[in-house]
């Protein structure tokens, strides 16, 4: 299972802060993003950053592993 977390402006658009997605061997970050973007197009309009297990992830070909924690995020505005 993959845990997908949403925060801030994205969670307002998904309506959920956590989604559980069934893991498939070979699944990439990009495939997961595309699946979720199809389900939540309004939320993914503002998604421009991703993280896997708390680390910035810029390569969407990255293969996920079972139990990964993935986050798709809007541009940050802290400080």
């Amino acid at each position, binding site marked *: 299972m993959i845990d997908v977390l949403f*925060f801030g402006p994205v*969670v307002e658009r998904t309506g959920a802060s956590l989604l559980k997605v069934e893991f498939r061997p070979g699944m990439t970050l990009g495939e997961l993003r595309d699946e979720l973007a199809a389900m939540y197009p309004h939320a993914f309009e503002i998604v421009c950053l991703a993280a896997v297990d708390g680390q910035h992830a810029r390569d969407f070909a990255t293969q996920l592993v079972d139990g990964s924690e993935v986050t798709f995020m809007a541009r*940050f505005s802290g400080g």
Partner: protein
Amino acid sequence: MKDQVRIQQEDFSQDEEIMALKASSMRMGGIATFLGCARDFSEGRSVSRISFDAYGSMALSEMKRIRLDAMERYDLIDARIVHRIATVSAGDNIVFIAAGAEHRAAAFDACRYMIDELKKRVPIWKKEITPEGDAWVSPHP
């Protein structure tokens, strides 16, 4: 002794943070600080409060990494970063950054580097609460 890098709900004391920074070494000749606070006006609207959301574990680890990057890049003696995650009112403190170095140039440069990197790398989001409604903030350069 409080951690050098923290996310907390409560307000912080700039004096306490600077005292803690100075206590780390007598070799420190320059300390530069940045204090970010809540404005009461933004994008043409009055702002009554600001709330925050964060990916807490990643935000803290990124803030620690930024401190270490600054320490190495600017040869700092010590540095501190504190960010509040709370609902704050106009004028309240949000973020405090301090850089201590042997000389002022490194302290100034490192302080600027840390707040700029925080804005780019740390997963925190700010929402302005206004009489006309709430709005997530678009990042400023």
